[in-house]
């Protein structure tokens, strides 16, 4: 239940933040990488750093993460298949993987795991389409029903919670 409330808060905060639709969409797209790929990976530390440092919507990133975690679990067989295809069934790529595998630090990313590589490749491929789709959707939302939602009681209840204060720390800057 708490997770659901947090997800709702993230959704509301993202859609009604001061950020532009592009900032919200970029947050969702970056968050989707966290959700689609196995969390405990070095590349996710980099992605998290980007979410924090870049002027994108942090709640949107959390929303993207939360939304794409179940998608990641569901698509794991696909990721595994993509990873196997790239790592094991494409001889032309073996020299690249061999070089990376024997390069310091790179193996710590677990790129040589089929699920990690498959999910990362998938997340990178859907990043731009997801960004464009999300930007269009946020803009349409704000132009249509966003104002009425902002004036509703439950919106005020959600934004009044303590989490909202934390959010304000990372809200996009103009």
């Amino acid at each position: 239940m708490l997770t659901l409330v947090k997800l709702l808060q993230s959704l509301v905060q993202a859609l009604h933040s001061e950020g532009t639709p592009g900032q919200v969409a970029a947050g969702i797209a970056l968050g989707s990488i966290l959700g689609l790929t196995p969390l405990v990976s070095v590349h996710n530390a980099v992605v998290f750093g980007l979410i924090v440092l870049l002027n994108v919507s942090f709640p949107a990133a959390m929303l993207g993460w939360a939304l794409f975690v179940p998608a990641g679990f569901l698509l794991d067989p696909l990721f595994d298949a993509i990873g196997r295809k790239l790592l094991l069934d494409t001889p032309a790529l073996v020299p690249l993987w061999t070089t990376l595998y024997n390069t310091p630090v790179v193996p710590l990313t677990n790129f040589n795991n089929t699920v990690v590589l498959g999910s990362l490749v998938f997340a990178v491929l859907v990043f731009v389409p997801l960004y464009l789709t999300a930007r269009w959707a946020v803009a349409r939302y704000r132009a249509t029903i966003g104002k009425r939602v902002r004036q509703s009681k439950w919106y005020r209840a959600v934004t009044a919670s303590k989490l909202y204060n934390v959010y304000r720390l990372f809200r996009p800057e103009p």
Partner: protein
Amino acid sequence: MSVRVFRWRAIGPLLLFAALGVGLWVLFADRLARYSAEKVGTAIVGAKVEIQRLHIDLSAGDVTVRGLTVASPHEPFENLLQADELVADLDVLPLLEKKVVIDRLAAHGLRFGTPRTSDGRTVGQSDGLAARVMSEAHGWAQQFQVPALQLATGRIDVGTLDPRNLSAIPAAGALAARTDSSRRAWQAGLDSLRLGPTLDSARATLQRLRGARAADLAVLNDARRTIDQLKRAQGRVTALERGVTGGLAALRAGVAGIDSAKRRDYAAARGLLKLPSLAAPEIGAALFAPTAVARFERALYWAQLARAYMPPGLLPRAQEGPARARRAGATVRFPRERALPAFLLRSAELSFTLDAAASQPKRYSGRLTGLTSDPALYGRPTLFAASAPAIAAGAMIDHVRATPRDTAGAVVQGVRLPALQLPSLPVRIEPREGTVELAFALRGDTIQARWGVRSSRVRWARDSGVAGSAAGDLVWRAVSGISDLEVAAGMTGTLARPRLAVRSNLDEAIAARLRAVVGEEVAAAERKLRAEVDRQVEGKAAPVRAQVATLQREMAARVAEPRARLDQARKDLEGRLRELTRIRVP
């Protein structure tokens, strides 16, 4: 309106977050490493690996492990080894490539085969590589059809004699049918002789001949014609008699065939007896082959595990990925020439204790070099050697070339040997102090192995909890006075078709006792079987025999009677004719 790309004020929290991460690493690195080491070790060995304490000192490149316990993947309440302390001198830079290179390892206080309170095996709880190798090794061991000592059941089982499997019964049925058809054929033959008119004519001619004179040529000619008729009739009777004689001989042969079939049935029925083996080599196999095969199975498990984790060649290698909430996937290693292996232990000094339970446990030392996950990169085989006055052990894992060669051998003298339970019998051998030897070589798929136990102070023990059985008593009487034990088991061939030979000094002693005691029981069982065969066969065969005998007597009489009458008629006619003509009839 322009939008700034960076959120500079978040740098502070991000650095704080990073510092928190470093702090957590400092606090929990040892625990995480211990947890990872236990997890990886457990997956590799196929049994629980437990570590009391692990400390990583990256600045000095040291890893110290205290209280290492590795459970046995084969025995539920036994440890494979325990170590008081392991100190590893670690190369730090390869860690950045996720490679573990240990220059030197010092292991102190190694003990083998110590007891444990809980089952440490994990191969039955997972489907990892160790479980698969264990399953394959177990399947390999199952192919040895070790003969059980049949007397262990205490009685000889006669089994079930199925009448359908007795060949004498259908033979008797066939003979009965042939007897009936012969009887009908011969009856038809007798009927077709039609001797009545010929004999009547002969009697009438004889009457006329008695009143005739020498010049009465018509009567004389009639008499000669009648004699010719009698001769032809005799010829027909002779032909019939010949056929009957031959047919009766065939029927008698059929009766003999039934007896022969019955003898075969005796032999076949004897096969139903579950007789104990009386041959010494089979007794040796029955007593010690399970133990020997178990030793070889363990050696094969470790050899195959080494081949799985230390494969030859430089091709990419896929292994199961790390266990996590998400799918594990496969983790692929990409070894490269002149690069470091994923794991390398250059040198290890081992200090270990054998017979730890003894009042004065003996301490030994050994050396292990070149243990690596990529033998082709390291370029040299893994070697282990340990020697002391009473022990010699060595192993070589050579996976440098395409055909792997794994050899291991050990001879341990003067240590307390574990007890051996004789299969299916409530008798246990306690070799006490003795010599045990194991040699195992696996070159490609060719196996050559030897296991032996020698002791001159053997003690025999009976399991008190098991009720006395004939077999137990028998073996106990045969071996309880023997103080020497010498067992040797050898295996040759390929993994797919191995050959096992087991012998011991107990084989002949037990075989002789078995022959003496079991002989009477075998004879009684055979008598019982013969009686059962007789009962089932004679019910069909005896009437047939009687039928043949009756037919033989009957046909002899029925053929003899007309022949006698014909002979008498011919004799009378020829006699009277001779009197009248004084001429000998040709």
